[in-house]
């Protein structure tokens, strides 16, 4: 098959994307596919029209990559693509929307409030801080609604730290969440075609939280896969992940990030429509623990993309 690998783009996660793509390209080549890497720039649509690939592997991360944009373009061009569809991407990229959907579906997610910068600039939202802290407590997690890789995620230890954290988070997106901090263990469950893969626990070695550097520098974080959890807890965690996957309408795959609170209850933070595929990424690690090597994973992902397209066409005729 001729496979276009969409990579790069202009998001802050460009470097991560290039690393994901490099690995995917190698795998596709050894699987015997014709690989056509495409940097997602202003020539994207033209390149796709010329190339007429059988399928597009989307190895883009962050806004502009997993927010439904390239997915929409591929839909209109009639090119099957990997990962979740347009609507699911939109739901995953927007943490506020995703959390509303989770809450409606009864999936546990930490309590939050969300505002855009206009609320602060024009409606005096900061005056509600007293009520917010009464409800959510400290430390308070402040994060941009649409961003990934922990960029712009800040913890405010007390009221004094809130304005600074808001200014940081609002540098990445016009909308921010203030979220209840969940102390506990950091888990990630990758879901492949609706089935949760083994749970990964991430333990940062130095930093007290899982930040951008810790995430992409080898050796900065210790990963345990499968995570060492009692059976019933692991079952709850997997269940929360599957329900998140369906509540957000994902297809193909997605990675659900959650915290396991100190009482052993999962609390879903977010779902990533296009999880990283780099050497330190959690999705390939989980697949590996399930006995699915990287090449096989890539091959499954491609199959799912083609099947989904086939199903969509069948339902239309």
């Amino acid at each position, binding site marked *: 098959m001729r496979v276009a690998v969409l990579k790069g783009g202009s998001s802050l996660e460009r470097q991560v994307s290039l690393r994901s793509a490099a690995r995917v390209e190698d795998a596709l080549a050894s699987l015997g596919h014709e690989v056509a890497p495409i940097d997602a720039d202003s020539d994207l649509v033209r390149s796709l029209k010329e190339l007429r690939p059988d399928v597009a592997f989307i190895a883009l991360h962050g806004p502009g990559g997993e927010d439904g944009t390239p997915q929409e373009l591929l839909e209109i061009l009639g090119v099957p693509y990997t990962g979740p569809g347009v609507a699911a991407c939109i739901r995953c990229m927007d943490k506020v929307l995703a959390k509303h959907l989770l809450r409606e579906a009864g999936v546990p997610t930490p309590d939050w409030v969300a505002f855009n910068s206009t609320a*602060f*600039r024009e409606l005096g939202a*900061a005056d509600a801080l007293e009520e917010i802290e009464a409800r959510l407590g400290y430390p308070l997690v402040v994060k941009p609604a649409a961003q990934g890789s922990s960029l*712009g995620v800040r913890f405010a230890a007390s009221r004094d730290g*809130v304005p600074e954290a*808001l*200014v940081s988070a*609002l*540098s*990445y997106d016009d909308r921010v969440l203030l979220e209840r901090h969940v102390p506990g263990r950091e888990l990630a469950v990758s879901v492949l075609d609706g089935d949760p893969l083994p749970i990964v626990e991430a333990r940062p070695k130095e930093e007290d939280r899982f930040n951008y550097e810790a995430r992409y520098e080898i050796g900065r974080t210790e990963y345990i896969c499968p995570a060492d959890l009692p059976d019933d807890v692991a079952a709850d965690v997997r269940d929360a992940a599957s329900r998140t996957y369906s509540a957000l309408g994902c297809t193909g795959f997605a990675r659900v990030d959650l915290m396991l609170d100190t009482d052993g209850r999962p609390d879903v933070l977010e779902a990533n429509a296009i999880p990283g595929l780099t050497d330190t990424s959690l999705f390939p690690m989980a697949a590996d623990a399930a006995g699915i090597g990287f090449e096989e994973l890539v091959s499954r992902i491609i199959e799912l993309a083609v099947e989904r397209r086939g199903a969509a066409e069948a339902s239309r005729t």
Partner: protein
Amino acid sequence: MTRIAQESAAEALQYGPTEGFDETKAAVRMVMEAEGMSPEPEDIIVTTGGQQALDLIAKTLVDPGDVVVCEAPTYPGAVPVFCSYEAETHQVPMDDDGMRVDQLEELCERLASEGRKPKFIYSVPSFQNPAGVTLSLERRRRLVELAHMREILVIEDNPYGLLRYEGEAQAPLYQLDGGDYVIYVGTLSKILSPGIRIGWAVAPPPVMEKIALGKQATDLCTSTLSQYFALEYFGEGRWRDYIGSLREIYRSRRDAMLEALDRHFPPQATWTRPHGGLFVWATLPDYIDTSDLLAKALRENVAFVPGAAAYVDGRRGSNSMRLNFSASTADEIREGVRRIGAVLSEQVQLYETITSEHRLPQPAQREPSGDVVPFRAPRGEA
């Protein structure tokens, strides 16, 4: 290039001496003479950029846990060097006259009371990267005195000394010291081109021997092709004119940047006014994190280096930024500074709105939302 290929192909494609060709050393001496220094050829080693010289010096001198002292902020490229040899790095603050040598003395005194002594003091005395400031002559003298009194080596890293746009040249530390305690690092990167990767170190014989051994282990010799290329350039005899033209260009770009900063940066920001080199260092209110601000600036297609990279702990300096005025035209600089100023002002206003207890409606000052950037009258004119 063509001429090198025709006339010296055989030599240019072979290994050369580890310390560099005699002719390259002569060129190095010529460049250093332009700043009043005349090193002995046997004290010079040609390296793959000044960066390799720094690495070799640290490799030669530093054992894990040794103390190294540098400026705060320091050259961001030196941070991974000191870290990789596991130095305990102390950073001494600077002001408009460069490193606070009085604080350096206090630090040395404190260390001495613990029975410790820095392996070396690393300084970029002229038009420092990233701060843009220059060590005053008086402090240069005191620094050299301190080195002699306490018998501490000083690494003088001087890529920008010849790029002065105003004021009098300052004597290099190497010249003041006579080469006893000062190890000098130079490069052609800023006066010819960084791509040819030619730098050098000047060090007294015992240190030089070790550096040469290290060099041998690392890459045997600096690219002979690059050395030939550099010699060709110096042979043409126009290098002084070329630096002269660089000075003209960079001076006008610096002026454009300083003017644009006055115009577009909010009054809460301060910045240095360099007399040479390539960089302006801006300090913002402490609630602004420049790595976050960079994300916002990148959406406007402008960039700067967040200040934290210039600190060994990676935490300090998070409210500062390095601006480079060498690589864009004056118009591009003005536009870039305008855009950074706009995103910065937006964040400053947001912070003030969030923190103010009495937010009175101020319709005249309210910024339009979206991508429209309001015109800001230059300070003093409004």
